[in-house]
């Protein structure tokens, strides 16, 4: 009876073609893990035991045990790849898998396309491979993650995903793009 249905179902039409590729990334999971006040150290050691080393700076991600951890705020992480167990006293875990739609843009002008919407410096010196940032595009909150030299993933709110997809198609138009 149940099949996961993307917010972009039926909206990914072939592009005009060109050096850029855009599309949706499917099949991932996402949780938010936040320490309760006073329990930060306890929760972090519990995370270390399950995932490994933790990122020490907002905007950095670490990988371990098949999971990716992004530090998004004081003792607050976004976790993908699989859940973790944290006691109620230590912290709160909320699944956000269905709350986000993941788009990607890849190609030589990918950073320029993103700069048409996000107020971020995408230069290698400021946004190297593996960097991510929570920012906004077209008045909606997004998380941009640089996963390749010229590939970026954009986590959009599910309810805004289609509008953002239309924005992305339009932003890519002058550069030429395909949809995959």
């Amino acid at each position, binding site marked *: *009876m*149940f*099949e*996961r*249905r*993307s*917010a972009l*179902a*039926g909206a990914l039409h072939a592009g005009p073609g060109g050096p850029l590729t855009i599309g949706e990334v499917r099949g991932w999971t996402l949780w*938010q893990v*936040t320490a*309760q*006040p*006073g*329990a930060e150290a306890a929760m972090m050691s519990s995370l270390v035991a399950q995932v490994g080393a933790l990122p020490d700076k907002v905007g950095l991600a670490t990988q371990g045990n098949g999971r990716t951890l992004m530090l998004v705020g004081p003792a607050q992480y976004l976790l993908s790849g699989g859940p973790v167990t944290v006691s*109620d*006293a230590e*912290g*709160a875990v*909320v*699944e*956000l*898998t*269905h*709350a*986000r739609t993941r788009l990607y843009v890849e190609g030589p002008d990918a950073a*320029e396309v993103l*700069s*048409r919407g*996000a*107020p*971020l*410096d995408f*230069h290698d*010196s*400021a946004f190297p491979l593996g960097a991510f940032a929570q920012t906004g595009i*077209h*008045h*909606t909150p997004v998380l941009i993650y640089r996963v390749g030299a010229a590939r970026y993933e954009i986590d959009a*709110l*599910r*309810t*805004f995903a*289609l*509008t*953002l997809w*239309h*924005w992305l198609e*339009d*932003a*890519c*138009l*002058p*550069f030429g793009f395909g949809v995959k």
Partner: protein
Amino acid sequence: MKGFKRLPSGGRIDRAKAISFTLDGKAKQGFAGDTLASALLAGGGGVVGRSFKYHRPRGVMTAGPEEPNALFTLGSGATQEPNIPGTQAELLEGLAARTQNGWPSVGFDVMAINQRFAKLLTAGFYYKTFMGPRKRSWMLYEPFIRKAAGLGEASADPDPARYDTRRAFTEVLVVGSGPAGLAAALAAARAGARVILAEQDSDLGGSLLSEPVGSAGDAWRATAIAELAALPQVTLMTRTTVQGLYDGNTLGLLERRDHLSPDPAKGQARQVFTTLTAQRIVFATGAIERPLVFADNDRPGVMLASSALAYLQRYAVAPSGPALVVTNNDSAYRTAHAFKAAGLQVVVADTRATVDAALTAGLEVETAARLVGVSGAHGVTAARLARADGSFLRALPSTLVAVSGGWSPAVHLTSHTGIKPRWDAATACFLPGGFAATHAACGAVMGQFALGQAIAAGFTAGRDAAAALGHAGNSGALAAPDIQSFGAAGEPLWRMPNPRHRKAFLDFQNDVSDKDVAQAFDEGYRSVEHLKRYTTLGMGTDQGKTSNINALAIMAGLRDVTIPEAGTTTFRPPYTPTAIGALAGRAVGKHFRPIRRSPLHQWQEANGGVFIEAGPWLRCWYYTWAGDSAASAYIKEMELVRRNVGVSDVSYLGKIDVQGPDAPEFLNRVYVNGFAKLPVGKARYGVMLNDDAVALDDGTTTRLSENRFFMTTTTAQAGEVMSWLEFLLETAWPELRVQVTSITDAWGGMAVSGPNARKALELTFPGRDLSSAALPYMGVLEFAVEGVPIRLIRLSFSGELAYEVYTPADYTQDLWEHLLAAAAPLGIKPYGLEALASLRIEKGHVAGLDLDHRNTLDDIGLGKMAGKEKDYIGRAMRFRPKLQAPERWSLVGLELLDAGQKLRGGSILFPQGAELKGHGHGWITSVTWSIELNKYIALALYDGGLKHAGEEIVCAYPLLNETVRAKVVSPHFIDQEGKRLHV
């Protein structure tokens, strides 16, 4: 005779590429590399526009964006763009230009009659003449005056072109690519800094573009550009004007791309606006030459000396007869020597008694000379020189009078953040008044007019900027080109004797003459800010780039103060006119703002859903199965819910996960009613107040486990409630062990409502016990179907037996389809927002319309809900006497008394017999047709509230001049005992 001609060789134009264009519909030709102005000059020049007020004939005066005369309307229809300087408009194939301000033509202009009445049209003319006889007379006159004034007109049609906006970041921004700017960019880039070099011209080089092609100066320019272009950390931006400097080293850059013939269908933007953040800024913005003030100085053929040079060297355009160069400084000798070298006849008239022989060598020069007039109405034919005492010196046939009154550094950007420029007596210029720590300037903008000086200062500024950012690379050295440098040393003399009292203009675009300044002085408008507004000096699209200093000098003279004492007006962005379309970028049409869609949106689109905008959401308003308009459909949908069962999308509700050991205590403080003892598995309706006791929001919160709650908010207030909760946790109670997370997007929801709601869910979830024992009113069940989590909460907005069913968003459509199919034997159908909102009015449930941030808990009739023994946000302020006054408005129901009439939302309420005046005694917040009562009913806020129950009142709707009678009743129109909820 034509004043100008194209030379057979030379210039930076591409003679192999002829460009066809039209002026007022007449076919013309130029070459690639021309501007509209240079092409028109090459064709003879002459009159290219009529002046704003007096309709005097005007010709091209400059070669840059400061042009006050040669303004055109480009394009036609939807692409029509007025007031574009022909000096900045690159000549493009098919360009359609129109002259402005002349009717029937600029050559013969009927309104030139204004010249006869010039004495009437002086400063302040409009204010004095058109203010009477009645208060609003100006409104009557204004359209006619504007038409006669004849500024260019924009099109009212949507612009078909595409515009784009983008963000950029750099370490060093260099503004201007003249010798100083090129040197600064080279030094910074060689040291290793990321550099953006922005140039408003189509080509890099600034004043070096006026060196002959292939000369030493030109070669220096080409070498510098080639080196910059090869460096990966350098971005060269031509046709890009830095329009403004803002806080935080943020700048606005406008790039023009018309030369690429951008195709909007291919996404190519006509203009791109870049919001740039630069860690360091080097201003190499150069200087703008000043005209001289003399009799009839606006005649076509009078041109700035540096512009005459640019036309010669860049565009191979020269006067067809003798040229006269009139100057008070050294810089114009560059023009004179270039003319001589090009074989043109030229005489120099210098206001100074003595001039360095190195400058005058080989030239015919009159020293201590004054220019007292020119002949030729539609083009200069001769000029008259006099001595300082006014005695006649010489008359010269001239088709070009090239003037230089010195230079005004382009300090605009340096002043945008509030630093006033300072007067420098040595250079007789306003220079930048100071710099932020991360700013520097070099070249002519600093009064460094000599070439070597500008290059050296630029190089230092660029190297220092890079060093300050930690770039220690070796910048090497940069030698200036080996060419004659002229500088701009001179004397501060701008105004020539005018014995015949002819018009001598300061602001050419706005037709402000020296006499207008004198008149402003006489009438007491002596501050520069008053002078500007009284005479309109500097208020044209050129913003007085060529006029301000001359006017200031004259005003300072009249007031007998120095120029710095007279002061200067404030520089504000943008530096040159910027189209609103460029600022809007792609945020037009369907990209105007984002659209928020429920997980059921696509199903609704495909199944007869009709949408309505609700904030960012597109919400399903009604379904076409029930009717083809909202007005008919919602009643059928209401009947479905009251008599059978319907299902409605409630994914729009705000949803917040509240977790932690202190979550019960937190909710207990946030809601007016108690939540500390809410049992696991139960939901409760709650209201929260602001700390000023105004109702913020209402909704239900369900306790899923000991430490975990599921909160819902109204759609409209979801964001505000979320940030309110975060604010409280971060500032008021940081010790509470609670985390809140928005899960609005994570879960989709549907309300199943109606007497058959339980049956519908039993068909949907066969085998599950949904009896009142297993799932009582305000109870929750959590279970999984095929591994998919379902959250089933029994609560009701409609007043019927009802359930909210939540499931993760990606599964919501499948669950919805399954439910509709499983319960189809009952006749279940979907219902939309209009019915949802109407059902709750019958029930007397408040919603966003009634919670409008003006009402307290007591106003909406829920005062009894509040806990008496506990504290909660808003309690302290709730009992203020004004908020508890018996005559304060509160929630009532209204029933329409006159069949055939309508109640309308927003109607103002009056007691029977009261005068219908002012704000009345209340207003209607929500209206619906009641299918249970068969009449219009409403919720309203009324002074004194239900004290007036049973009274007849008047509902006035002034917009339609309509009044109807209504009766005050309880806001709970149906099932006041709540029997339907508990079946």
